[in-house]
């Protein structure tokens, strides 16, 4: 057991747990923040994606010890219905999600990417989103939403 301090969505937290436990379990179980999902536990799908100091990481394989002193942002920290991130607003506008379970991966990954490269081409966007899964196969709508968000972010 270890006591690990970090910040989540602007709030300081301390979690006492196995330092090898993936961050995802700390978020979901200890901190009751259920928005990142367990999809594979293998960093192969993206459903658990959060930002760690602004970079997208797969929280299902990120040991808790590695987040000590860092800033974690979840989808709920990225934006809210009152103050949405442009990608969230575009996702609603384009009616993207079907089951919606994959959403953290796409929005968190795309948000970090567009911040660096707001004018990315379609091909660059597709490359940046490699590895993410959407089993309902809403990829066409995902692309529309990202392009809509790009116009908002430009």
């Amino acid at each position, binding site marked *: 057991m270890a006591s690990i301090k970090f910040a989540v969505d602007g709030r300081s937290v301390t979690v006492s747990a196995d330092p090898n436990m993936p961050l995802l379990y700390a978020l979901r179980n200890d901190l009751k923040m259920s928005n990142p999902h367990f999809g594979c536990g293998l960093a192969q799908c993206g459903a658990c994606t959060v930002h760690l100091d602004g970079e997208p990481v797969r929280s299902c394989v990120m040991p808790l010890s590695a987040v000590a002193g860092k800033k974690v942002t979840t989808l709920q920290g990225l934006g809210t219905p009152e103050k949405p991130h442009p990608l969230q607003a575009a996702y609603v506008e384009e009616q993207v999600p079907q089951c919606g379970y994959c*959403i953290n991966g796409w929005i968190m990954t795309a948000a970090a990417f567009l911040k660096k490269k707001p004018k990315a081409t379609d091909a660059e966007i597709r490359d940046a989103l490699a590895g993410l899964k959407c089993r309902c196969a809403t990829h066409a709508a995902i692309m529309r939403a990202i392009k809509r968000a790009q116009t908002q972010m430009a």
Partner: protein
Amino acid sequence: MNARIDLSLSRREFLKASGAIIVSAAGPAFVGETLAQTAGGKPPLVPTELDSWVAILPDGRVTAFFGKMDMGQSLDIAIAQIVADELDVDVAKVDVVMGDTALTCNQGGASGSTGIQTGARPLRSAAAEARRLLLQSASQKLGLPVEQLRVDDGVVSAVSDPAKKTSYAELIGGRHFHHQVEWNKQIGNPMDIKVQAKPKSPSEYRVVGKSLPRRDVAGKVYRTDKYVTDISLPKMLHARVVRCSRAACTVGAVDERSIRAVKGARVVREKDFVAVVADHEWDAVRASRMLKISWVESKKEPFPPMAGLYDHIRNAPVVKREDSVKKGDVDGAFKTAAKVVEAEYEWPFQSHASMGPACAVADVRADGVTVWTGSQKPHFVQTGVARLLDVPPEKVRAIWVAGPGSYGRNDAGDAALDAALLSKLTGRPVRVQGMRSDGIAWDPKGPASVHRGRAALDASGKVIGYEFISKGFSRRNIDTNESDPRDSLAGMSIGLPPKPSIDFGVPAESYGFDNKLLAWEVIPPLLEASSPLRSSHLRDPVGPQIHFGSEQFIDELAVAAGEDPVAFRLKYVSARDADVIKAAAQKAGWQPRTAPRTARSGDVLPGRGIAYAQRNGTIVAVVAEIEVERKTGRIWGRKFTVAHDCGLIINPEGIRYTIEGNVVQGLSRTLFEEVRFDREKVTSVDWLSYPILEIRDAPEAIEVVLINRPEVAPSGAGEPSIRVIPAAVANAFFDATGVRLRRAPLTPERVKAALARA
């Protein structure tokens, strides 16, 4: 953590108003029991009561009780549109309650794309009947005949004097109709009611036919709505079921000391069902990995070599055959044929591979059982859990909460029964979730199959004899729902005998060949019980595999007859089907060709192909435009043009999004998906060993032509368009290369091998 499920305000208000039920982990409350104590309260939840279908709240809002589920394909809003039009209320005032066995009748859950086709019928009738009763009541109150009244957004007024008015809220808000309707005595998809009111004609619709936005989107995007994975109860244990990676194993010794290092974790076992439970989820995960079990392996290797799967199917005995379509004298036609065309097509086992492994939470108490499930058929979870635990079904409440995707009988049905069994065995509420391999290696599979086409052409190229015979594993080795625990992994693990059903299917089309035979043959399962390759319904059960064969075969006949594939189809199909094929071809700018392209320079070969099919009243045609990368063997499905006729359209945008999902999921299954196995086990256990389409391979464009037929009752849109994708891509590949790919998936290795042979 408080376990209340977030209910929409209106639903909470309704429930409060009706005094019927409180959704709380403090203990399940059952509608029947609660209401028995409340004279004049809500009548029992039976299809014969109008109150089981529709309610008017004190503020005039309307609640529709829908015994099916919206899995993200716009059903919720579509049902609201239908109810709003029948009742003459603003659609924004209509809430749809779904998937709770205490609040909705068993309309079969999500099943067979029938959400609108059969699911909306009783809702439409109930709303019309409610309007009729409310108008009667208003007539008495206002002292005017019904004919002199009009309804605008729930306000009933005199046609001649708008000041003379009352409202639904005043007339009945918060109270019940206590009105009987005639039920057709059917459970599940065919459940329907008859009422005295006459539903409106399509010309009177105001919101049906409009593209209104869904209501579940924002909750998913901002993550303010709960998923089944988020349900948490006081004193809840987390569980992981431990399964042998090898198939056909029984449990010998379980070394409980092997998890001693995980404080608080313990083993729960009944016969061959083994799980670990712990207060913290991570402890359950760790313990499940550490637990040492001596598995007892079957002597015989359970599976044939994967490379021999299709020979196994070809050579296996037939346990049942059905000649579903038999017309004329097929054998006779072959005797006079000028030309005979024959071909075989092969389709692998495929996994639901839902976005996350299934999860369920169960709370088994002496006074009742509550199960929160992502299963698309919660009413059948109720029955299955009742049978598993040997309690009356009315003591079990199953509540659907959105899960990680659902495209048929996936692992959600198993998780629900796992959770119930574990809660019973531990005496605590239990949350169980699988690991990735449980969702890919251990979910019920779409069946593998071989399809044989044979056709006789006369000298003019006319098809004079046609047969298409599918042979494969049953589509219902595990039934399509979990209402019988013998169809669940938990049930089979505790020794219940398996209960296989035998079923397959034939192409759905209107080709008017004079002599025609469409048949199927089912072979025995590879393993009788607890098989990771047990087969069941996966989106559009057997549709993609059958039409991968049949619609390629039609293309092969067009080539043999020296005709363009579109023109060839149009010669034989019905008029309504022809309209759909023409619409797709026209929108795609189809250029007729009687043979594949011959100009093939460069590394990227373009091709286009068409496929068409029916599905329970819906007709769909698609033109696929692909690019074949000669060096890498990659196929890119660049553009798809879908024409879709499902009768009356309720919500065009909803159908459009649903079709897009079908196209891309279909493309994934066509190009990438194949469950791998060796002699002992399924070796597809994660996204590396069971790859699906990623965004790099998603189409650049999907065009959808919706053909609205207001005069035709609506049929389904949830699945039809997936079944035409595989053949359209394969036909486009032939157009690009002149080579046929008759085995799915069309992987780069197979593409390169086929091109090398060409």
